[in-house]
């Protein structure tokens, strides 16, 4: 879950001050190992594994660990003789890091949360992940047809699954989230405001916002990375996949393209128009700005499907109701879009038991598992039809968002390609952090684009040097 950069920083600091307390949640085996010679049942194992023991490490965040406990149990029941040991922690990266360094990684990892995902970037740079393409080309555990067909379209082709852009899958998708702009549905309904479908309509609402005594827009000021939720779809809306590829594959020309000028132009306009940006936004952290939004100080804010749950205890204006807009388009003829984000699961290349890990991974996409995930984690696996399975476990708003995506609302999924090993650049920081200065009118788009052109040229050069070695 991208339950956001939110608590992450605080936990970093907490972890440093309270290292001693870092709880080690290493529970051996969720269930008891099944008897090796359990009477074979109908669905039982057709396969015997040379090594029946599987060590998995999972992130324990907003989705909890119950799903993993129960799915492991189900897997062990279906494959008598196997035994799964689960290590679960909110700081899972910290726990597996020493094992990876020692060359003894877990067999399977589900890594999520902004504290933890950087470890995946490291593993990608090191080419230390197992190629999973054959699992998705192979048949699904239940039902017919290749497993690939069960996964939401576009996910396996995207960077989040296929980091090197060569079509090979190294990261398997788990839950997915949808991100875009949010508004107060009650306010829009009562005042008869139409949610804007284009950026022009969006800015036209500024007057309405002023009349309602609120700013047009706010965002998670200290963490401008949240703005990708509108910038990436905006880039797509102008320049299509081609422009996104330029952005994510470090083409310096992107920073002088029409896509850049228009997409980042939104930011500049927000920064400069009266009443467009909520006062003080740049200095607020995610909780502070999101609370201001709930209290009716701004009309729109970018965030993801976790929003309702994340803010469930926060104060809000009377009658507040979450409404999800998605991201407006440039021009009437284009549709509202959204950015999607998929959590990742991997098998390290040095896993001791890759065969069983693969079998386990395949099992995770079965109906039984999707159902369990809905029940225990209230999560929506990135498989077709998953939203309906969780319908009763999630709020109506969240369900509607997932349903919209499931039935064809365009979602953009993308991420920066890996940079050269040893590069000092962290692309998402380089691109998003300076936006703070754009928003406080201390950096012009010209300077910004000049800086990034230089950075992209550098990253390209580093990649070429690294490739030549």
């Amino acid at each position, binding site marked *: 879950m991208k339950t956001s950069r939110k608590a992450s920083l605080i936990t970093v600091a907490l972890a440093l001050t309270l290292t001693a307390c870092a709880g080690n949640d290493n529970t051996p085996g969720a269930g008891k190992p099944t008897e090796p010679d359990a009477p074979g049942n109908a669905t039982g194992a057709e396969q015997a594994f040379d090594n029946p023991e599987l060590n998995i490490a999972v992130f324990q965040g907003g989705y909890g660990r119950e799903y993993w406990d129960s799915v492991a149990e189900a897997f062990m029941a279906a494959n008598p003789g196997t035994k799964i040991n689960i290590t679960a922690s909110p700081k899972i990266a910290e726990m597996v890091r020493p094992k990876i360094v020692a060359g003894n990684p877990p067999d399977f990892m589900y890594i999520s949360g902004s504290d933890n995902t950087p470890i995946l970037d490291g593993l990608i740079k*090191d080419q230390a992940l197992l190629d999973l393409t054959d699992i998705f080309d192979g048949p699904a555990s239940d039902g017919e047809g290749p497993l690939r067909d069960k996964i939401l379209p576009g996910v396996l082709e995207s960077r989040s699954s296929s980091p090197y852009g060569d079509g090979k899958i190294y990261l398997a998708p788990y839950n997915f989230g949808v991100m875009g702009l949010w508004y107060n549905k009650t306010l829009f309904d009562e005042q008869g405001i139409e949610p804007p479908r284009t950026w022009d309509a969006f800015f036209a609402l500024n007057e309405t916002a002023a009349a309602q005594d609120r700013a047009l827009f706010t965002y998670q000021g200290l963490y401008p990375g949240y703005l990708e939720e509108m910038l990436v779809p905006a880039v797509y809306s102008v320049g299509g996949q081609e422009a996104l590829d330029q952005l994510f594959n470090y083409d310096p020309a992107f920073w002088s393209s029409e896509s850049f000028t228009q997409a980042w132009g939104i930011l500049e306009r927000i920064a400069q128009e009266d009443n467009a940006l909520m006062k003080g936004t740049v*200095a607020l*952290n995610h909780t502070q700005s999101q609370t201001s939004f709930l209290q009716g100080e701004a009309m729109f804010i970018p965030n993801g499907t976790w929003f309702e749950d994340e803010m469930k205890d926060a104060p809000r204006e009377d009658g507040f109701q979450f409404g999800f807009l998605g991201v407006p388009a440039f021009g009437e003829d284009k549709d509202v879009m959204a950015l999607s984000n998929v959590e990742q699961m991997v098998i390290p290349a040095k896993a001791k038991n890759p065969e069983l890990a693969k079998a386990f991974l395949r099992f995770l996409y079965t109906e039984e598992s999707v159902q369990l995930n809905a029940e225990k984690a209230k999560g929506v696996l990135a498989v077709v039809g998953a939203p309906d399975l969780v319908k009763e476990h999630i709020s109506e708003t969240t369900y509607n968002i997932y349903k919209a995506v499931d039935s064809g609302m365009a979602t953009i999924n993308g991420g920066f390609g890996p940079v050269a090993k040893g590069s000092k650049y962290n692309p998402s920081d380089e691109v998003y952090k300076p936006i703070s200065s754009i928003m406080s009118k201390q950096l012009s788009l010209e300077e910004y684009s000049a800086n990034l052109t230089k950075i992209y040229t550098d990253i390209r050069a580093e990649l070429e040097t690294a490739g030549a070695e």
Partner: protein
Amino acid sequence: MTLKQRRILFILACLLPGIALFVMFKVYPTVQIFHKSLYLWTGLSDEPRFIGLKNYADMFRDDVFLLALRNTGLLMLIVPVFTLLIALVNAAILAKSRLRERALYRTVFFFPSILSFVVIAILWSFIYHPTMGFLNSGLELLGLGEWALPWLGDQRTVLWALAVTLIWQAAGYYMVMYMAGIDSISPDLYEAADIDGATRIQQFFRITVPMLWEIIRVTLIFSINGVLSISFIIVSIMTGGGPNRHSEVVMTYLYTQAFTNANFGYAMAIGVFIFIVSMALALISNKLTDRGSY
């Protein structure tokens, strides 16, 4: 075996566990840091690649590092000076005046030192909150509304805002140290000065400061190093290095490179650099303040 030899053997045997632990947990990791700073290493694979001093050379071409270094330098310059000045003046006033609330003030000023840094950082985030924060609301109340800035979101003010937090956090601690020092100065000196007609201010500069000089020297080094380590927590929580890296400090940058950018070798090089700089600063400040003993 003579008695002397047996004694030496016994002492060695007693020292061994301590030395072993020290080597294992202090010396070995430190050596490892120096060693790993010479490698291109993600901090994950078991195959670091030797690249000599390239990490160090890169450091001085890395704009973000240089910015972080400048920010840290500024904090290390401002914070100790103001902290110690405020601490010293407060200590002198509290120790030498006959204020009835003396004990109360001492407790109140010392209070920040027993709060966790995380709590302090969150507290000050709300003091600086651009709309409902204590600072900006206060300014508006005084009719100075146009002076209200988004302190942590403006690249011109962010470092100063953080400096104030760091000073507030540390001043009370050093004040208590100075008060203890002042209490141990013989009252005769002050009495004699009084008789000779010296004013309180003269007494402060001619008696208090010289008599406390050794303590001041030590606290100066403490304070400089304190900035280095505390700034990490304060910055991580209050600004995340923003806006646009204008509050990035070397420790946060080191952390980012090591753990989010998988540049462990480079991060270690930064660590070594910080180590050398802080050693150098300690030596320099020690040398500069060396007046011989009074």
